[in-house]
């Protein structure tokens, strides 16, 4: 089970800003280790952010995104106390979902 994400969500003037820090190695698959062997690809491919069950952001990541990715975005709506959930899935099929309360 992957390590948890750190999610912060703040609402101001009808707009919610979400900041997510994900714990993931994001191996591109083209990097070589000290002995010259290719390090296998393991990176987040899809990300889905929802508010009250409704999708507010969908993203497709590639191996070009660096380790422990940080994502920041805004959406119209949301209110203090409501939940924002973020789910990522990687190329190996592993996934992780975490949620945060809008402050």
């Amino acid at each position: 089970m992957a390590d948890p994400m750190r999610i912060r969500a703040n609402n101001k003037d009808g707009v919610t800003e979400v900041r997510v820090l994900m714990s993931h190695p994001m191996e591109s698959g083209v990097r070589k280790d000290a002995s010259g062997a290719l390090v296998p690809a393991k990176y987040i491919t899809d990300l889905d952010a929802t508010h009250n069950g409704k999708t507010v952001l969908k993203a497709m990541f590639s191996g070009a995104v660096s380790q422990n990715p940080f994502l920041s975005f805004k959406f119209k709506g949301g209110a203090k106390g409501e939940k924002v959930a973020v789910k990522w899935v990687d190329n190996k099929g592993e996934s992780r979902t975490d949620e945060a309360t809008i402050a």
Partner: protein
Amino acid sequence: MKTRLVISAVLMAAATTGAQAQDAAAAGIAKFREMLADGNPAELFEMKGEELWKQKRGPKNASLEQCDLGLGPGVVQGAFVQLPRYFADTKRVQDLETRLVTCMETLQGFNAEEIARTPFLKGEKETLAALATWIGGLSKDMRFAVPQKHEAEKTMYEVGKRLFFARGGSHDFSCASCHGADNTRIRLQDLPNLTKNPGDGVGFAAWPAYRISNSQMWTMQHRLNDCYRQQRFPEPKWGSDATIALSVYMGVNANGAASIVPALKR
């Protein structure tokens, strides 16, 4: 980092020659760091560290919640800025990492020598990095107050000072070669003067830090180890008196400066 590198490379390419290019590069680097500061991956280590402090682990299946970091058993807030210090139970001056290992040994039954021998970034050394990050973070913005009351603490300061200036190795480097003057840099990396208080959030006040260039969380022991490597010195043993003496010297010099731990480094 790869996508972020593209942005900073574009910023740098936009500049022209000479001093303009250098200013643009410095500005580009500053902007790059600013962008990264919001979402410091060190926060992931803080979360992990808190978990490891409270979790029952080791042969004794106990948590670290009774660990005394100098302010009493279990007192974590404020402890970071008062280390290294003398501990009566071990009769030695200890830094955060060696003190954590003492607790891991006495409370949880781990083998201290084995942890000392484990390479950085592996096994229980990663545990230490996470714990140090979380504990450091709980003193964020507090001012250093590394004690010099006990004779042993004063002695370690004097020993640390001598080690700081000791030139050696194939290149005749000492810590002071890079960290002994104001306003210098190595390549484009600014160097703090560690023979005195270098200011808030600089030098001793900035480790543990997350290093963007290699995506690693580095503690002060790790930083010292790698400094010595670059100085062409042989390896300092992990947790040795040399490493602790240097931390005492730098820490006491930094007294009054605010800690920004966990920091973000290139």
